[in-house]
């Protein structure tokens, strides 16, 4: 398992950060904390794991960002979505999830696909229809909608 690496740049008052590896007790967000900006865009696409100490470090980190900052989470993997749903504080006031991965099941090939969804795709708590990249047939959303999309109500 790899330690967390953070690559970020500031473009017109917006911090664009990419995270890769594990968010755990050793995760340090000090470099981003120093940059106090109006907007933050966090890309979690390459995050492999987050443990309980990592959740605490993350919550402490986002609490240090400016209170009126706009915070956007992008490409949240399933494991991050699960933790968001289980623990309060992962999504701060003013933060929103722009996109995230969700499991879909292709019955024909007996295969699970992680599909990148936008939060705006979720209407009335229902998963959008997604077609299999292999067969073109509609796949089944493979989680409990009320549970998996719980973070949208936070």
């Amino acid at each position, binding site marked *: *398992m790899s330690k967390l690496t953070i690559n970020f740049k500031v473009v017109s008052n917006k911090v664009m950060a990419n995270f890769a590896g594990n968010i*755990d*007790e*050793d995760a340090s967000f000090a470099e981003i904390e120093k940059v106090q900006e109006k907007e933050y865009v966090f890309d979690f696409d390459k995050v*492999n*794991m*987050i*443990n*309980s*100490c990592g*959740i*605490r470090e993350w*919550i*402490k980190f986002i609490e240090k960002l400016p209170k009126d900052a706009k915070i956007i989470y992008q490409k949240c993997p*399933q*494991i991050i979505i*699960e*933790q968001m749903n*289980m*623990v*309060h*504080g992962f999504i701060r006031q003013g933060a929103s999830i722009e996109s995230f991965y969700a*499991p879909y*099941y292709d019955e024909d090939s*007996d295969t*699970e696909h*992680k599909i990148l969804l936008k939060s705006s795709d979720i209407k009335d708590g229902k998963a959008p229809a997604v077609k299999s990249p292999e067969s073109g047939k509609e796949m089944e*959303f*493979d*989680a*409990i909608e009320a*549970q*998996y999309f719980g973070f949208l109500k936070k």
Partner: protein
Amino acid sequence: MENKKEFFLNLNDSALKKEIAEHLGKLSNGISVIDHPVENPNFIIVDAHNIEKYDEAFLRQHGEKIILLSELSDEHNILNYIAKYPINHLIGINGNNVILELENTINKILSSQIWGLKQYMHPMTQITTEGISDSRQIDGVIQKALGKIDYSAYFESPLNYLQVMSNELLTNALYNGIAHRNIINVKEGIDRKKEVFLKGSEHILFSVAADEFAVGISVQDSFGKLDRDKVVASLKRSFIEKTAQEKEGGAGLGLYMIFNHSNQFILNTKKNKRTEVIAIIDSNRRFKKYRERITSFHYYEEVSS
């Protein structure tokens, strides 16, 4: 004359009741299955409907006799049964193989052979065990052991959940064990950023195994400080508050995460000698089924002779 253990089956589902009665009858000659109330049975296998018919005083006094088959949510099960009464065995009714789980539970209770993953696996299953002696080894040992499992019978991401559970179990065992040894307040704990080392005869063992029904991990330590009260208090707090704790040691969410990510959560203890936590995930290709699975809770204690 043989002293048979009486199991009262207090179940509404007559088909399940019949199936359980047949299996228990074959399990051991020392078991007597009863389908009507008797004065003082050794064990009561009860469903979530019928347990509500017992009053609080009965559940407080006789909770240890109960094996609850529950269809209710994990949160409800922990807050309303496990945290309130001394019920040590709760089986999620929608598991892949409820009968096998019940048999394992009864075998462990009757035999007092409580330790290890072997109880949960086919006898021919190979169990990989790695020792840990310092915090720097944790990630490598997890990678090595979990890398040996074939996940083709599972949904796409069991490895992610096994990694999180293994990490939480090993860091808890190591840091909390050393905090106890050094007489540090375990509630405050040791900073998880610090490197720590076991010494002398202290040991932590990490085991992994998989068969056609399940994949399991086990973390055993030589401290024996984690007990039912501590586990249940942690789960209760986490289910109610759902927050990380701000303190020197862990975030107070590890056991909650392990419970949420496992299908069976098993705690084996021998006070001040040994603790083992086992987490099992049922074999299945559907993530949804994994998530729908009501988590079982089992607690066993080996009493010093």
